[in-house]
């Protein structure tokens, strides 16, 4: 954090604390949205409160806080908003969306995606999400995805019996009819884990020196 007090920066700027000004505007916007959304609901009376009474009071209070914050941001020095890269938030949200639309059948207007289950959604979330940082390297991410996914499949699908789709139905049809869902799940998990192991071993062979370097930087 650079201190706005130590170095007197642009004194001309009438925004003394961009954090507070932005925060104040944000609060007032949220309050306005709440008031807009409840505009048609009855307020009721104190004796029998209507659905809109409390939300409206709260919205006015939030707006008042926002106004106070905005004013303080204009007349008092305070922290500025730290600059940030867009890469992290955008990529992480993309990864979450990728998971949400592939985990089970999803359709939005003309686009429709068949339910692919955890076996696709999990690795997608890991690999896309991994690109949120500049330190990304593809191979370790793939290994991570291929080893964590079978772990989660066994934990959530097999051990805990949670109703989470694990693989698409068309995939299950590839197996002989005598196989149970659980057997298919276990076989798939085993294949994925094996693939992770193979990639790990071959990768280690090729670039063992690189891994050591990364390990060191992780410690310091």
């Amino acid at each position, binding site marked *: 954090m650079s201190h706005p007090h130590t170095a007197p920066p642009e004194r001309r700027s009438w925004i003394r604390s961009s954090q*507070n000004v932005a925060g104040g505007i944000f609060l007032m916007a949220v309050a306005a949205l709440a008031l807009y959304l409840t505009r048609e609901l009855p307020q009721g009376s104190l004796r029998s409160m209507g*659905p809109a009474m409390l939300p409206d009071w*709260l919205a006015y209070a939030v707006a008042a806080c926002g106004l106070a914050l905005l004013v303080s941001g204009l007349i008092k020095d305070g922290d500025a908003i730290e600059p940030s890269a867009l890469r992290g938030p955008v990529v992480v949200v993309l990864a979450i969306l990728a998971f*949400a639309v592939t*985990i089970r059948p999803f359709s939005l207007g003309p686009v429709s995606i068949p339910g692919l289950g955890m076996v696709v959604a999990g690795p997608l979330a*890991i690999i896309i999400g991994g690109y949120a*940082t500049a330190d990304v390297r593809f191979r370790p991410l793939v290994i991570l995805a291929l080893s964590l996914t079978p772990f989660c499949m066994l934990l959530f699908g097999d051990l805990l019996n*949670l109703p989470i789709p694990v693989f698409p139905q068309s995939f299950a049809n590839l197996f002989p009819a005598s196989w149970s869902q659980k057997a298919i799940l276990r076989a798939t998990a085993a294949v994925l884990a094996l693939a992770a192991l193979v990639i790990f071993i071959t990768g280690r062979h090729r670039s063992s020196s690189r891994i050591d370097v990364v390990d060191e930087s992780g410690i310091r």
Partner: protein
Amino acid sequence: MGDLFANLGLGFSIALTFQNLGLAFLGCLVGTLVGVLPGVGPIATIAMLLPITFGLEPVGALIMLAGIYYGAQYGGSTTAILVNIPGEATSVVTTLDGHQMARQGRAGVALGIAAIGSFFAGTVSTVVIAALGAPLTKLALIFGPAEYFSLMVMGLVFAVVLARGSILKAIAMILLGVLLSTVGTDLETGQDRMTFGLSFLSDGIDFAVLAMGIFGIAEILRNLDHTETRDVVHQAIGRLLPNREDFRQSYLPILRGTTIGAILGILPGNGAVLGPFASYTVEKKLAKDPRRFGRGAIEGVAGPEAANNAGAQTSFIPLLTLGIPPNAVMALMVGAMTIHGIVPGPQVMTRNPDLFWGMIASMWVGNLMLLIINLPLVGVWVRLLKVPYHLMFPAILMFCCIGIYSINSLPTDVMFIGLFGIIGYVLLKFGFEPAPLLLGFVLGKLLEENLRRALILSRGSLETFVERPISAGLLAVAALLLVLALLPSIRKGRDEVFVE
């Protein structure tokens, strides 16, 4: 007194069954893991692991979740001492002297005294919970809606006073949290409020979704902004057991820390967070040579660690006796209880005595386990710290997605953790603390319900809140606190406590 022992006996007979011991162990292990890894907090983890407990007995489920919670408090101090990064918000203070001790080659002693202090504090607060449970439950039964409302207002005021940074921002966050809790169908009139016409919003915003977005995803985004600097101690950890001299220096701080932490923990409004800060300040004031603090004084580890653990445990009291969750973790416990058909509140103790006493007994068992599993496993935890963040966060991300999906089987829940993650990140950028928002959200529904009921009973007269003596007293305390916090001189003192 005889009752107390009979009840504790019942509790232990439940906590010591093979299955519950196993669940407590698992919870403690996972909790420690979470506490050790910076960037994964107990709130996000419990939300993630909530579905795992669906298939368990209610007692077992709560024992495991409680284990995760206090395991995380323990694990957080390991990271604080060895890496100078507080694994949890409550172990910030431990970094000051704990890490200095580690630099002087006394990491083992610091870890040892932290574990022993925590265990002692855990033991005492288990007894405190058991002793206070019954009388507080009786008190709760004479509470009407007006008293409940005032109590929650007091809790929220505490949260404002205890929050870090600007008081105005903390108030805004609380109000925003309560506002968010009013989204969804109005319970009395059945009308949809602020749902944008979306059907999945008419049940309101799911607490687990909000918590995971604001604490899980937003935390990832924040960590991605800062390139991490980890400062693992390379010296040998050294002997773990403190010697006689260490004990002589730290037994009084442990006693004082336990008392401070236990009292603050009971307060609704997340008083537990203040415990370690308060204890550190007290020890520094009482020390013969305050300059030693910040340079590896063992008292600066022993006191706050004891306070931390005592507070973590006594914060179960408002939940178990009054049904009011004092912090976000406890709110998730409410979620877990509701899933199993248990309504938290004074009736839990009479209707589900096994659950109540079993959980209390399991806390002590869990603390003993933590002492046993933590000290020998320090090496494993240190190795875990070496996992680079660029591999850790995609894994956290996937666990969040799977966890939140399996709670309700709704893809929209998954999308909403992304949305709340962005909102939480923006709030952090604007200098708002997310914790008060979550607390406001947690108490919001109860607050509205009790406000309305009280007003119906009083035929619309707001005076009911000051006419009833208990309610008036609670509101007076709240008002006094708020005024005190706003007074310039005290405000300065409060800032100093947090700066230290």
